[in-house]
């Protein structure tokens, strides 16, 4: 009798566990690419740049890296799930409650090293330290990277590969949030053109922000 119960517990537990892990697996899987992330995460310029990058699968090999492959830690599953859940909450909060029109993309991008997890990069790019086809400079710099690992001067992949995964990101960010006000009008046009091409049927025009600074004043000049 006892044995039966134990057996039953095992079976039920197993099935339950399987279902749960399948759920978790598909849950994680379905929530790992840009189509999910973009729902809450303010990242139009990043997604549009990503879609023009080889990492979106548009390259010869068709290999595609999803958001989570680079932007979540892969050292262990607990960390992974925790970071993911935490991001979800934070981004959701920002999306619903914060001033998303005035995110300082440029400042955030300067901290790109914090958003990119090298173990993700290295998971696919396994031969960066011994690929004979790399240029001498690349070999030298990758060795430099290795040398600095676990020191106070540690650098990340994105320290040098400044637009990796999102080719043209600097341009995109300047279409969304021009660093210099003189570009504002043209940047808005360009932004809307890019959004129209990307969102197609679901495109909704965005509100044009009023100029941050007065471009007509000659203050800059008279102050010299």
């Amino acid at each position, binding site marked *: 009798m006892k044995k039966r119960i134990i057996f039953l517990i095992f079976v039920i537990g197993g099935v339950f566990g399987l279902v749960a892990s399948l759920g978790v697996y598909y849950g994680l899987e379905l929530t790992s690419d840009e189509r999910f992330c973009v729902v809450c995460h303010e990242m139009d310029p990043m997604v549009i740049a990503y879609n023009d990058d080889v990492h979106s699968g548009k390259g010869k090999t068709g290999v595609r890296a999803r958001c989570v492959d680079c932007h979540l830690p892969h050292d262990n599953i607990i960390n992974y799930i925790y970071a993911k859940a935490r991001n979800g909450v934070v981004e959701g909060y920002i999306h619903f409650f914060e001033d998303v029109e005035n995110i300082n993309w440029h400042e955030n991008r300067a901290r790109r090293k914090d958003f990119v997890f090298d173990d993700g990069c290295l998971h696919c790019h396994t031969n960066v330290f011994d690929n004979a086809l790399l240029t001498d400079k690349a070999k030298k710099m990758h060795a430099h990277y290795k040398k600095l690992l676990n020191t106070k001067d540690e650098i990340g992949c994105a320290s040098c590969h400044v637009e990796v995964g999102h080719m043209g990101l600097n341009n995109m960010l300047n279409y969304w949030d021009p660093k210099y006000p*003189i570009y504002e009008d043209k940047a808005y046009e360009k932004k809307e053109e890019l959004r129209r091409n990307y969102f197609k049927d679901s495109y909704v025009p965005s509100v044009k922000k009023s100029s941050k600074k007065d*471009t*007509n004043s*000659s203050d800059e*000049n008279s102050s010299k």
Partner: protein
Amino acid sequence: MANMSRRDMLKMSMIGAGTLALSSVNANAKEAKDVKFDEEWDVVVVGSGFAGLSAGVTAAKKGNKVLIIEKMGRVGGNSVINGGVFGVWGNDFQEKEGIKDSKELYIKDILKAGGGLNHPELVETLADRVRDAYQLTKDCGAKYIMLKLHGGHSVPRGALAESDSGAGIIRPMSKFFQDIDGCELRRKCKLDHIITDESGKVIGVEVRDEYQFDKDAQNDDKENTSGTTKFIKAKKGVVLASGGFSRDKHFRKAQDPRIADDLDSTNHPGATAGVLLEALKVGAEPVQVSWIQSLPLSSPDEKGYGVSSAFTHESFRFGIIVSPKTGKRYGNELANRKIQADYEFKSKNEDGVYLLSMCDSKAAAEMLPEKLEKVQKVGIVKKFDSLEDIAKEYNMPLDEFKKTVANYNQYVKDEKDPEFGKNLSKDITKGYDFSVAPFYVSRVIPKVHHTMGGVNITPKAEVISADTNKPIPGLYAAGEITGGVHGAVRLGSMAIADCLTFGMIAGENF
């Protein structure tokens, strides 16, 4: 002594030769006996602007191996920052707009501005061949977008190059040249000496590769020691196309003591007299070196060439130039550059005020909208809603100013300017007077712009020797380094014409 380099040796020997043999102009020239050439080309062209590229392309098209050397890091010198208006009679835009022009009228305009100092055979040659040069640029891929009128021309005949700049001509031409097999455009390579053989024939050049121009030097030609010396043989000849010396503080003042060191110039920093001086050392005959033009279309409110001319070309044509001191017009707004520069200087020096160049919104509409916006944004052109506002801003006597405007508007109606003789025919003014607000106003001041003088050349672009009064074998020159084409005053849009045409002619010799 044993450690002396070849350069030092040469310098020493030059000083020695100079003192010993003052009578012989050739004494300073580098002679071939002691030279071992590092490279050999058919033709070496010095300078990569309009004249240099035109010569290079033409010579290369005839199958020559051509090397163009350029001392600066960037291609095109002044040409690539120039305003891109090419004065050519009988061009396609004139045809389209039904403007009658002719070789004779072209020559007449040039001679009139030149004040009798032009070498007539050079002007004749220019007029004969300028259309071929226009075609040459098109063959290289240059495109032109509209017709412009510059002061001193009887009719609009300036073809404006794409991108509103000489770059619209230089970029396609330099690409065209560099795509030709066996030719090279070498930047950061400076001419140090012209090399002649015993007979005085030019057979090569001594240059410095990897030359690093020093913007901060008082006199780069004299102070700069960068680069490594090389001797380059030019089998068929050397073409000097190195431009003028508007940025050479010492040399320009030596020619015209009125040009203060701090007077700004529209030119790029490398516009110095170095190559001209080397040409003189091999006996080239100088002409009219003291005729130095200042550009009256410039603004005191920005540095260098700037963007002001985009506005002032139109405001000179359709508007008036007024002194804020008196509220009166100051002169003929379409007079040649010398006359205008002289009266702008006069106002500044004697009355202590910058003259104001202004036009109304009808005239402003003739400018590309983005240009008009740009000159305002950078703060060199201001917009006003009424004459009162203008007078207030510049402390101008309002009544006098109003009278000036009323008079001018009457002159436009009459197509005649009894005060200063400005050409107010309908062709020029399109009937625009100074009446429709908003008005646009810019302060104006001349900046050193073009050096009319240089070495004397034949109509085949051969450099004439002061010794023999005959061409120096193997030496050719074109563009701003030469003198005689423009005489006292170069008309706007005629630099491109001169440089491209004589560059082409120089290239045809090989």
